[in-house]
């Protein structure tokens, strides 16, 4: 199939970016979206032009590196799928596709479709860890954890930190990301010890990084490639209230 692409091109952080039009020819429906961009880039390189810069790593949907807003939806039209796992069979011959980087003040564009997501790392550094001494390696099942709590923690731990929640949020809030990390650790006994401090530190860091406030639009949940639920934001809110007492 042939496609008409409008891709965000931006030389560097300080330059003014713009959408540029490209044609993608002979695209197989079995290609992934990133492979389609690889084909476009090969042609651009042959023509002596600057290839489109985009983030990618595992191309298996688990590393959280790919970060493109496709026709207004972070990670594109397929639910619970990263860009790398989105296949061209979801598009038709002659389609026009707009490809833009994540947009938020806390995610400055470095080049083209690549944004700096280190603000998310600093939220983790503010409290997304466990520092209590747990002693030597415990025997299996020495600390009993209910199935319900284990499931909640595992569901929250699905977050790959890609930042699609921030990209989708009309407020540029990282609340779903922060909520997933807070909920993951707060659901387990090892994480409970620092739960109060953690939720305060991580939400404060979110503000310092320039992310917005959550106003419960729930666009984040729709964009999340791992299906993280906004009920984790309610859990974060409960943890924050508990932390005040």
């Amino acid at each position, binding site marked *: 199939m042939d496609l008409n692409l*409008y891709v965000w091109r931006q030389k560097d952080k300080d330059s003014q970016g713009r*959408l540029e039009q490209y044609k993608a020819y002979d695209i197989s429906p079995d290609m992934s979206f990133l492979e389609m961009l690889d084909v476009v880039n090969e042609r651009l390189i042959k023509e002596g032009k600057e290839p489109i810069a985009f983030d990618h790593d595992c191309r298996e949907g688990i590393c959280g590196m790919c970060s493109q*807003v496709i*026709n*207004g*939806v972070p990670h594109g039209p397929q639910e619970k799928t990263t860009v790398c796992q989105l296949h061209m069979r979801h598009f038709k011959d002659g389609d026009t596709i*707009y490809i*833009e980087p994540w*947009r*938020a*003040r*806390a995610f400055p564009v470095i080049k083209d479709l690549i944004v700096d997501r280190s603000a998310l790392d600093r939220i983790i550094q503010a409290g997304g860890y466990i520092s209590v001494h747990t002693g030597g390696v415990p025997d299996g099942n020495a600390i009993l954890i209910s199935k319900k709590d284990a499931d909640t923690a595992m569901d929250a731990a699905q977050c790959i930190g890609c930042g699609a929640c921030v990209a*989708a*949020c*009309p*407020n*540029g*809030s990282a*609340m779903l990301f922060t909520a997933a990390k807070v909920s993951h650790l707060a659901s387990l006994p090892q994480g409970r010890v620092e739960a109060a401090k953690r*939720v*305060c530190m991580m*939400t*404060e860091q*979110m*503000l310092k990084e*320039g*992310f*917005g*406030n*959550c*106003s*419960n*639009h*729930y*666009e984040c*949940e*729709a*964009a999340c490639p791992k299906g993280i*639920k*906004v*009920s984790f*934001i*309610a*859990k*974060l*809110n*409960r943890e*924050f*209230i508990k932390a*005040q007492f």
Partner: protein
Amino acid sequence: MRFVENPVGKKIAMSVTGFLLLAFLFIHLIGNSTIYLGPDGINTYAKGLHSLPPVVWTFRIVMLIIFALHIYFGIKVTLENRQAKPNGYAISKNINSTLSSRTMIWTGLIVLAFVVYHLLHFTLQVTQPHFITSKNLDYLGRPDVFKMIVLSFQRIGITLIYAIGLLSLMLHLTHGIQSLMQTVGLNNERFMPKFRLFGLIIAVFLLVAYLSIPTVVLTGVLKA
């Protein structure tokens, strides 16, 4: 960091003040509904209310503070959110957000403008100098609040202002009520659709209940 500067703290402050304002809407509605008892009903209620100035003024001051805090946090959160998302997308799609959630600041500001008008209209009575309740008494010598309300709502323009204000309030509450549940942490996957429906039902109920008064006046069911 202080509680009210934290991103969650600000939203909790908005939720608590929003909940108190919602509670006030029900109290106010009970008072308003005395109009259906006729002139004796609402005039007795109004006289009774004004015979307790310390209670009325304490209540008014507390409500004013709650209202001011809700507006302050609403504007602060909106401005911060706009700064956090300075650039939009060439193509933007809304999947889960609603008209109600996206227009909270605008419906909120319309409600604020409406409340100011409502206070000038019925409390301070500066918008209708030809009919001041302190000078127009009923047959028992009470301020004739009933007549003031009926004469006002017989004018289509005034009813229209109330309809716009109340519709904005409904839209604001449709998102506000379910958002409140999420912010105070009561939400979960099972209750989320129920809270959404609950919010919509409360919002529509308040719209219909409040708007019923101008409607019955305009249609001639209630006459002065």
